[in-house]
């Protein structure tokens, strides 16, 4: 028995040497997160409903939202929050479609809903700022026009505010719409969208959920977030320069106002699943670039060694940016090692162990998330049935890693008024040059051939 134990210990130590860095940097924090969420779940007391629900202002920026606006407003209308206490502000930022007609129609369809149409200059930030100046509710809630609120979302969010005077800023949980996912025509895309759904669940119900407990939420979600009016109006409002105005305002609340940001884990908002891989490519690059821009605005003077231990924002940046470089080169170095007399079993074995550990940490969060979806039976059932996606998540995450890494590098060379090129356009540029070169070479060969043949 002792021999066996020693053998197991030796074996563990041997393999640990190979996986120690990812184990410390990724797996152990995940296990820590699991325990924090477990503790939160057991100690959580649900907020008591207030005697009277206060008036809230719901800001919905509109930009070419004709297709989704009605459904969005319908979700507000179906909300369990007293309709007389909701004032909706639709802020149009130079839409060129029939959004206004949809608004007019909605006034007839939802007569009990108080709605106001405002025209702002182009840009989401400008639209949000205009609405903020004109708002008068106790709480200001932002939602995107291309999503849908869960009927209980507004109520749960306001109850959280009312029961916790120290909470000034909340972010909701964003999930992709399961109905739309299941309506996807092709199987590979359906599978991909299911993985995306799991990613959102993990990002909000696990990731931000435990970050909320540690007071370390890096960004609130622009698609669904809420503030006490008294707090948001004391900030410098939404910044119009950056691509990530939501992250920028998060930094303002945290750095300038010294207030915390929390997650309201029972306020759900549904957005459309990603249209195609090309859209994912541009969307994720935009998110990553936003993080870099906001870091430039707020962290550039705080990027010191001790920041990693003292400031979670520096830590987050190190995880997202610094670690990406050795990670990238080591993927290829591992392949290289196979050609340098490293036993294949050793490399394959360590990769396999790492993969299993990643799946294991995803499984831990899966258990957490099932617990947090307890009040949303239908969503919970849908999520629970997707357990078979878990083993694919490390591959999905790897794919996302490459896109975000592309954003890190691409953002260096960008100029003012920059843009994220769709992958198709990048591919086209590459092949145009390649075929151009090939044509040139063919032409030279043909000329030479004709020259030789004539002589």
């Amino acid at each position: 028995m002792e021999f066996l134990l020693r053998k197991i210990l030796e074996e563990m130590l041997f393999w640990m040497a190979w996986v120690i860095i990812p184990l410390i940097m990724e797996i152990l924090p995940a296990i820590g997160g699991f325990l924090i969420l477990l503790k939160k779940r057991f100690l959580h007391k649900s907020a008591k409903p207030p005697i009277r629900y206060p008036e809230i202002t719901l800001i919905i920026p509109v930009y070419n939202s004709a297709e989704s606006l009605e459904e969005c407003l319908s979700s507000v209308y179906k909300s369990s929050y007293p309709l007389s206490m909701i004032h909706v502000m639709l802020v149009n930022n130079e839409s060129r479609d029939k959004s206004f007609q949809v608004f007019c129609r909605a006034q007839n369809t939802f007569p009990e809903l108080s709605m106001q149409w405002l025209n702002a200059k182009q840009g989401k930030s400008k639209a949000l700022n205009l609405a903020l100046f004109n708002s008068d509710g106790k709480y200001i809630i932002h939602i995107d026009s291309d999503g849908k609120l869960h009927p209980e979302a507004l109520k749960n969010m306001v109850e959280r505010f009312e029961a916790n005077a120290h909470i000034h800023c909340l972010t909701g949980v964003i999930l992709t719409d399961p109905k739309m996912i299941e309506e996807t025509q092709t199987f590979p895309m359906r599978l991909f969208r299911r993985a995306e759904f799991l990613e959102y669940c993990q990002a909000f119900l696990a990731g931000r959920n435990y970050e909320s407990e540690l007071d370390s939420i890096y960004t609130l979600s622009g698609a669904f977030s809420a503030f006490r009016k008294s707090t948001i109006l004391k900030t410098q409002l939404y910044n119009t320069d950056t691509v990530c105005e939501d992250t920028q305002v998060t930094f303002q609340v945290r750095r300038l106002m010294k207030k915390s940001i929390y997650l309201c884990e029972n306020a759900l908002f549904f957005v459309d699943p990603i249209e195609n891989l090309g859209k994912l490519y541009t969307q994720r690059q935009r998110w990553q670039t936003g993080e870099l821009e906001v870091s430039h605005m707020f962290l550039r003077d705080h990027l010191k060694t001790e920041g990693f231990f003292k400031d979670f924002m520096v830590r987050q940046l190190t995880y997202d940016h610094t670690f990406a470089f050795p990670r990238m080169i080591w993927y290829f170095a591992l392949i290289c090692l196979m050609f340098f007399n490293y036993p294949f079993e050793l490399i394959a074995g360590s990769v396999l162990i790492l993969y299993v550990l990643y799946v294991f940490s995803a499984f831990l969060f899966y258990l957490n998330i099932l617990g947090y979806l307890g009040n949303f039976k239908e969503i919970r059932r849908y999520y629970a049935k997707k357990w078979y996606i878990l083993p694919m998540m490390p591959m999905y995450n790897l794919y996302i890693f490459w896109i975000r890494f592309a954003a890190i590098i691409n953002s260096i060379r960008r100029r003012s008024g920059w843009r994220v090129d769709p992958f198709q356009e990048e591919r086209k540029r590459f092949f145009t040059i390649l075929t151009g070169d090939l044509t040139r070479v063919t032409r030279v060969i043909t000329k030479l051939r004709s020259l030789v043949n004539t002589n």
Partner: protein
Amino acid sequence: MIPFLLAMLAAWIYLVVVLRRAKLTFFTFLVGSVGLFIFMMILLQPLITAPLSMAVAAATGVIGKVTGMFHAYPQYSLVFIEQGRESISLYIDYECSGVIELLAFTALIWFFPLYNTMEKLIVNISGLIWIFAANIVRLTVISVMVYFFGNNIFFFAHAIFGRIVFYGLSILLYFYVFTRSQIIKQKVGKFKYGVLTSENT
């Protein structure tokens, strides 16, 4: 083998040039740095590993001599730790020499689009010195641990603790060279999505 290698080298250079002409910043960086790393591993690594191992042993030996805890034999790339009746020799092979990390850093820096050529040269040299020093620290830590706790600690000290120390110091370098520099120079400005032209839709 050599003609094949030369053909691959030419193909890689051409690919990098095409990617650069197409203004594909990320793919230029990816193909460029990975390719440079692989070619340096094939062509440069066999040449520099032995002298590097000797240099690492010699530099570690200086610390050993000062503390009196271990001796180095640079000509054999060996560090010899003796304590009471126990002794252990640490052979510095190519994994231990830090050659992979040195080449990886070099490959990354030369295709990282933030710096100009002169800056790259300076950052590269400073980085190489840092990684070399980090490796000395790692070997010293291993040797000191073995000196105090005996041979049984060797595997843990070498494969786990030493690795963490080395990784921590490397990350510090990467943080200053890649992250901090980029964040300070990061441009903030108006953003828009690229629009597909009618030809490629």
